[in-house]
């Protein structure tokens, strides 16, 4: 476990650097434990790290690092399997042709590979309703776009690295857009306002245009 400063009132606690379900379960448990502390304002679970916003009037970077190391060494509670969501996708995204060319696969094959696994919701964040899903089959692994788009349409289904996701709102974004879905992920009048929760499972299936 390593920590790094994120300015003077936050830090990043890295439990690992691998995309791994067990690591993610420990991460979610650590974030939940940190949220209960008085000196912590917010703890955001990533894939394998927790971003901790703290009150510098109540603690210091070093003291909180020591406390996080103690918490991270504890055995996390058993995680229950999350809810399963089935999401229809029209695989006609604006980056489909470019992704197909880069990977040397046909668009139909990319759709088939993308819809094959049951993904885990590793984290919810970025913008309201966004969920990071993984692991993406390694046949589809690509780095993020060189230059992020300033606006991605809501409902876009995207891939980057070993991850997949759906843009819930029209936002900037640097992932490759391979399809779109009509399912609403951002539900502003519910609390939490998101369809997906960390630990949920997602299955995509190809839908006609």
């Amino acid at each position, binding site marked *: 476990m390593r920590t790094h400063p994120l*300015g003077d*009132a936050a830090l990043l606690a*890295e439990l690992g650097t691998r995309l791994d379900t067990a690591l993610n379960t420990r991460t979610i448990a650590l974030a939940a434990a940190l949220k209960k502390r008085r000196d912590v304002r917010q703890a*955001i679970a990533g894939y394998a*790290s927790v*971003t901790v*916003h703290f009150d510098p009037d109540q603690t210091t970077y070093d003291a909180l690092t020591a406390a996080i190391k103690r918490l991270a060494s504890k055995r996390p509670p058993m995680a229950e399997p999350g809810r399963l969501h089935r999401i229809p996708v029209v695989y006609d995204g604006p980056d489909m042709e470019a992704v197909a060319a880069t990977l040397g696969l046909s668009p139909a094959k990319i759709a088939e590979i993308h819809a094959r696994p049951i993904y885990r919701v590793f984290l919810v964040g*970025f913008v309201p309703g966004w969920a990071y899903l993984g692991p993406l089959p390694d046949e589809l692994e690509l780095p*993020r776009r060189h230059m992020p788009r300033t606006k991605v349409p809501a409902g876009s289904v995207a891939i980057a690295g070993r991850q997949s996701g759906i843009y819930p709102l029209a936002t900037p974004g640097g992932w490759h857009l391979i399809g779109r879905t009509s399912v609403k992920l951002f539900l502003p009048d519910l609390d939490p*306002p998101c369809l997906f929760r960390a630990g949920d499972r997602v299955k995509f299936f190809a839908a006609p245009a």
Partner: protein
Amino acid sequence: MDRFALRAANLLVGNEEGAAALECTVSGPQLVALHSCLVAISGSDFDPRINGEAAPTWTGIFLSAGDELTFAGRRSGARAYIAVGGGVAGDRWLGSVSTYMLAERGGMHGRLLAGGDVVSVAGEPSAPAVSGRRLGENLRPDYADHKLRAIAGPHIRRLDAAGRKTLFGSVFKVSRDADRMGYRLEGQGLDASGDELLSFGLVPGAIQVPRSGQPILLMADHQTAGGYPVVATVTSASMPVAAQLLPGNEVSFAEVSIEAALRMRAAQRAALDSLKS
């Protein structure tokens, strides 16, 4: 965006620091007081006028019913704040009255204010309303100093010595892609390439370096998670200055220690606390 200006304006009218207020970007509104009220204008100078006469900024001002508060034009900076004694009433969403336009929630039904809107007062001020209270110029952020203090971030080691010198030495320009989410900066490119990162939680002030090498400074409405390397984070005391930048402005970053950043934070805290007595 400029939390210092928001807090100061609220304290000047006797509110809690985090009460809802109006944020004016680049130009100010034309307001008519329907009832008498105490207001304070902070942040950048948009040349505020009351019934046409120059009005003081960073000062509690009493308005009588019928008084007009207008702004003659921007003289510096990007954002001015108007606080009203009792706070501005608005929709509360996820525990905040802030407007989040992307989701169309909070504030005035999640949208910009428009001509004809009636802005109501939420309640009673928490402290007795006294006009004439003022925050001295020496206690305000130095908005003209565009050298933002920053603390080395989790992925600083991805920059080589020359890259680190570029980050903490060269001048960047705020591009046209600049909003409440963040500012894309233009300047000498930075190479922070390496293995793809797993997405992690972000904070305001984080300086991300995408593969293009042109950094992005995250602001108030930033995404909560992302996977680009974060090479540094602007200190909380410098974020009010960052909030006042506009496209075309030049900006640079000076590396400071956490201890130095906390001293500057404490000085700002003391300036705000001086308004609480």
